[in-house]
């Protein structure tokens, strides 16, 4: 064992153990670590968005545009915008961003809806086309596969795949009661869905255990200096 002399690593290790102490029972040490984490996280997110988005994507180009300058040195003018170089027009998102803070003040809080409306409009549009192209069209296209591939094994797999896809889709069809043929098909679909949930559970176990392995590797190697 070769215990580290780095105070920072000791602090990180002790905070790790403080969080783990919750496994025994809730205690002041855990509560301290938890509240410290929430406070640091909230503060970090504020600073991060300030210096990585608001400053380089809005403030800097906006203040530059007051001198008539922008990305393209050949173009002059506060509102002489082009693709990727919006200069003075960045006043609009700046103003909308500030209007968001009116939510904290009840009487004028309705003004924040304009900012929300922009966000919702942009993301509703982007997500609609993204899901349509990436998840709907491409996936349906990928499902149109030949059921006979020339080999018995892969053909059987293709048939099972197609049956599973159709019956699982039918399970989500709620416009008619699941009786008769539809009922039988959706019952089969449930079985396929249960297999997928089971597989998902297996992978979830792997993921969670990996996180624990990572913490133990930190405590053993970085803190205690033990190499396995």
């Amino acid at each position, binding site marked *: 064992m070769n215990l580290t002399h780095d105070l920072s690593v000791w602090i990180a290790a002790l905070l790790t153990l403080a969080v783990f102490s919750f496994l025994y029972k809730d205690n002041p040490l855990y509560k301290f670590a938890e509240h410290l*984490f929430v*406070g640091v996280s909230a503060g970090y997110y504020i600073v991060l968005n*300030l210096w990585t988005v608001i400053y380089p994507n809005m403030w800097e180009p906006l203040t530059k545009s007051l001198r008539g300058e922008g990305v393209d040195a050949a173009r002059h003018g506060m509102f002489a915008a082009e693709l990727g170089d919006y200069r003075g027009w960045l006043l609009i998102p700046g103003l909308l*961003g500030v209007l*968001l803070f009116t939510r904290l003040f009840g009487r004028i809080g309705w003004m924040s809806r304009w900012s929300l409306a922009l966000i919702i*409009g942009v993301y509703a*549009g982007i997500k609609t086309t993204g899901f349509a192209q990436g998840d709907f069209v491409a996936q349906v296209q990928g499902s149109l596969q030949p059921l006979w591939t020339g080999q018995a094994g892969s053909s059987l797999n293709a048939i099972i795949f197609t049956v599973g896809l159709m019956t699982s889709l039918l399970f989500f069809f709620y416009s008619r009661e699941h009786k008769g043929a539809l009922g039988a098909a959706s019952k089969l679909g449930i079985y396929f869905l249960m297999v997928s*949930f089971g597989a998902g559970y297996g992978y979830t176990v792997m993921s969670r255990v990996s*996180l624990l392995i990572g913490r133990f590797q930190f405590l053993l190697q970085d803190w205690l200096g033990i190499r396995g």
Partner: protein
Amino acid sequence: MKREFPLMITAAVGLFMILSFFVPHQLVSVPADFLQQSAIVVVAFGYVLGGANALKLNAETVYKRNPGWIYKLILVVALVSTVEIGVAEGPGFLDDGKRSRWIYDQLYSPMAATMFSMLAFYIASAAFRAFRIRTVEAGLLAIAALIVMLGRVPIGDLATSWLPTSLQLPTLQEWIMEVPQNAAKRAILIGAALGVMATGLRVILGIERSYLSGED
């Protein structure tokens, strides 16, 4: 107009975003790009708002000396200190040697990682106490889970290496993932895509208005 104007903004912006997917002309692409850049900036302001709101709520608890106020004081002090240090250090606040970087590496990072790692313990406990096989469906779920869990790790390979290849755990695991699991996941993907498209259109057309919460 307090509700109608935002709805009009959503509709106009949303339809423009959809149009920009199909029309590459700069009369459409430049304003669309500007709107997307604007959304990026406004969302960033939203995070600052979120932090400010957290500060407001917890500061009230400390001021009123509500139960647990000592811990809320720790939260407030941590938040304010992190912001002050980060703002003072400027755009390079995450550079090596900076105090903000130390806060990130020694406070934020280890605690974030540890919070998630606790789930490993709960998953074991839940497997013993809550995972009940009482129906055919649950049985299928359990069998699939066991095959995938053991087939995905070296010990599953080792334990069944004496069996014919088609019966070994890794082979069964691969088949489950490639065929039945894949089929069901694709069905979920397609179904979810239809749902998102429908909801997106409802929001853009003003039928879905829950984001305009509150009176007026």
